[in-house]
């Protein structure tokens, strides 16, 4: 070990030892062999933790000697705690749940086992999963660092009753972007409702239009920044048109205004992952049951929103059991279907997508058999590689878009500035794409 590394380790270990004195005893440690029985520790976040708990009985059936311990933290806390755990190599669980938003950063960390290697051989399972989700769990050089647990096929949820009042039909929303915005104008004029929650939602989905397999969202295969492309210019223009026409409620997703907008029926459509139906049904707007419908995204866009993954840290103590757990959660048809029943999380496993449950009419969507459509969407979503700089690029693009909306910054200049800032921030970092 070189002296530099020794010093670094000492510097990091000192506070950890101290922290252990103060608080470590109450913190969940890594998986450990207890009194005869081993404990498999799974670090997760809501609502994915509920799916893991729901699978607890099956786990005990298969592994009566291995206790399953699910440590759940809030979404942001979980990913921050896992970042810290990866940095220090301390407090790592046996199985780590990762949200799509963090997958690029985490898989680039080099801190996870390659599931393509023996004894895991995830390559054999590859064809059992939705293609694009497996691609998202890939690391560099063809490694498979995470397995998908659930996916979020993109859909346009809309209020059928509001559309009817405005004399509109579903095709008026989905034909193309121009039709979608025109429908928004008519909706606003006749019902006073907003077409969408936030113009940024429109920008976000429109910039995925036309993406093909292997193309990155922000970076191409050679690591070049793509934000000055026609794709981004068009998406920015669409978002700006929506804002200028007053078609968005300016309510960012998951904010109070956003939730209130649904509850009070002031937002007529929302583009998001199919899993949003579960949130609308359970807490966002349960009183609007039966009024919503699901449609394909406008303009023929095939996109996915969100998704959850499981990975095994290299320093996990019970790797074999961890792999069994991941296979249970991701590759077991019944567990995948249970997650669909309990959480409305859409299965990543193709065989689960063939179940009769897919044909079940959804009461919240007025009896629509929407899962069949979502399955079709999932099959068409292009397999886009993730980059560890995706989150960084997302932040920068979002901020430049805001300047376009509020400070009338010309779009070409905003995109030029975004490119330059992404390059500036990403280029100097180790392992940068550019």
């Amino acid at each position, binding site marked *: 070990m070189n002296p*530099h*590394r020794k010093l*670094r*380790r000492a*510097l*990091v270990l*000192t*506070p950890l*030892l*101290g*922290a252990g*004195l*103060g608080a470590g005893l109450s913190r969940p440690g890594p998986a450990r062999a207890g009194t005869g029985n081993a404990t498999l520790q799974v670090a997760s976040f809501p609502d994915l933790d509920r799916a893991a708990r729901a699978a607890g009985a099956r786990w005990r059936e298969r592994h009566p000697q291995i206790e399953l311990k699910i440590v759940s933290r809030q979404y942001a806390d979980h990913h*921050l705690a896992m*970042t*810290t755990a*990866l*940095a*220090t*190599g301390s407090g790592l669980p046996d199985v780590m749940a990762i949200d799509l938003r963090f997958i690029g*950063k*985490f898989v*680039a*960390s*080099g*801190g996870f086992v390659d599931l393509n290697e023996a004894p895991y051989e995830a390559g054999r399972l590859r064809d059992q999963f939705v293609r694009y989700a497996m691609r998202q769990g890939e690391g560099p050089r063809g490694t498979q660092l995470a397995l998908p647990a659930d996916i979020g096929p993109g859909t346009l949820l809309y209020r059928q009753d509001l559309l009817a009042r405005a004399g509109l039909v579903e095709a008026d929303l989905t034909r193309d972007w121009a039709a979608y915005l025109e429908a928004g104008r008519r909706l606003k004029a006749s019902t006073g409702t907003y077409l969408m929650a936030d113009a*940024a939602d429109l920008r976000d989905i429109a910039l995925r239009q036309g993406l093909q397999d292997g193309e990155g969202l922000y970076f191409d295969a050679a690591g070049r920044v793509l934000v000055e492309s026609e794709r981004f210019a068009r998406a920015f223009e669409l978002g700006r048109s929506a804002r200028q026409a*007053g078609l968005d*409620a*300016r*309510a*960012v*997703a*998951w*904010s*109070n*205004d956003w939730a*209130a*907008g649904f509850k*009070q029926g*002031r937002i007529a459509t929302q583009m998001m992952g199919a899993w949003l139906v579960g949130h609308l049904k359970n807490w966002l707007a349960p009183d609007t049951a039966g009024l919503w419908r699901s449609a394909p995204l406008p303009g023929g866009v095939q996109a996915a929103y969100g998704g959850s993954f499981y990975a095994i840290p290299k320093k996990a103590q019970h790797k074999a059991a961890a792999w069994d757990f991941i296979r249970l959660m991701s590759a077991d048809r019944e567990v995948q279907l249970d997650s669909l029943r309990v959480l409305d999380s859409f299965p990543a496993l193709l065989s689960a997508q063939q179940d009769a449950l897919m044909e079940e009419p959804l009461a919240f969507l007025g009896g629509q058999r929407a899962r069949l459509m979502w399955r079709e969407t999932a099959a068409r979503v292009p397999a886009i590689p993730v980059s560890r700089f995706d*989150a*960084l690029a997302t*932040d920068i693009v*979002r*901020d430049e*878009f*805001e*300047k376009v*909306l*509020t*400070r009338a910054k010309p779009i070409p200049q905003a995109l030029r*500035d975004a490119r330059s*800032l992404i390059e*500036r*921030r990403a280029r*100097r*970092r*180790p*392992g940068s794409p550019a």
Partner: protein
Amino acid sequence: MKPRRPDRRALAPYLFIAPFFLLFAVFGLFPLLFSIYLSLHQWNPAEGLHTMQWVGVENYLFALSDPWFHDSLYNTLWFALVAGVPQHLVALPLAFFIHQRVRRGRNLLVGAYFVPYITSSVAIALIFSTLYSRDYGLINAALAEATRIPFLGSPLAALQAAGLPDWLGDAEFTKPAVAFVIFWRFLGWNLVLYLSALQVIDKDLYEAATLDGAGSWQQFRHITLPLLKPMMFFAVTLTIIGSLQLFEEPFILVDLEKGVSQSVMTSAIFMYRLAFSDGDFGTASALSWILFFIIAALTWLNARLFGREAQGNQHAAR
């Protein structure tokens, strides 16, 4: 000759004081020293300690030349002026008024002003999000109701027609909206500081001034203000430090996911984003030291402008 055994009694004080030093070393000194070390390296924590790379002062140069840093510094200074200065301009005369005129229920009144300072950030976020919401907020509801009032109604009706303010969603309003919360939160703190300083000013001075025919304003101008200068120096120094470290209020009120969040991005928030969103802990550490030097420079400037005179007045008052 027997080796001298350490005297247990002599060791006891060190033992008793050791927990503090141990905890300080771990939670105070170590992070400080490690952040200096980190500021000279590039490091993404998700990739482990072995990925640390020595880059010298590059992180400092990078942070100083980053456009977001310039924006964040501007926002920070804006808040320091717009939210910080009024705290003192209001707290000082208010403290004087309470000190001179309020006898019954004074503690209750001062307590009421002080409550925001000790209120949890989560409660503040909930309350002000509710007040500031564009479509469902109390402020906009009140504005909409006020359009019915004769005379006041017509200009407000014009405002309503143009769209009621989106306090936390429109860059034009976010800064003043957040600045008001900061003002509201720290007014009571400064009030308590000034009240405590007022209470030690000799009452004879006021009585003598009254006998000489000085009115309230003259007493405030020629007795209170000069004798409060040491406390003003202290309070302004705290405001400078607090303003340049401002994080909580803009962070909890304007969601980072909102594009508009950049309009209230302070240097401390930028530092947080660099570290926890971009994973660039090296530059974030460098930025923390740049901020430290800015705070030190401004505090020194404040001491130069205010401090000596304040010290002089303190001696004169004695």
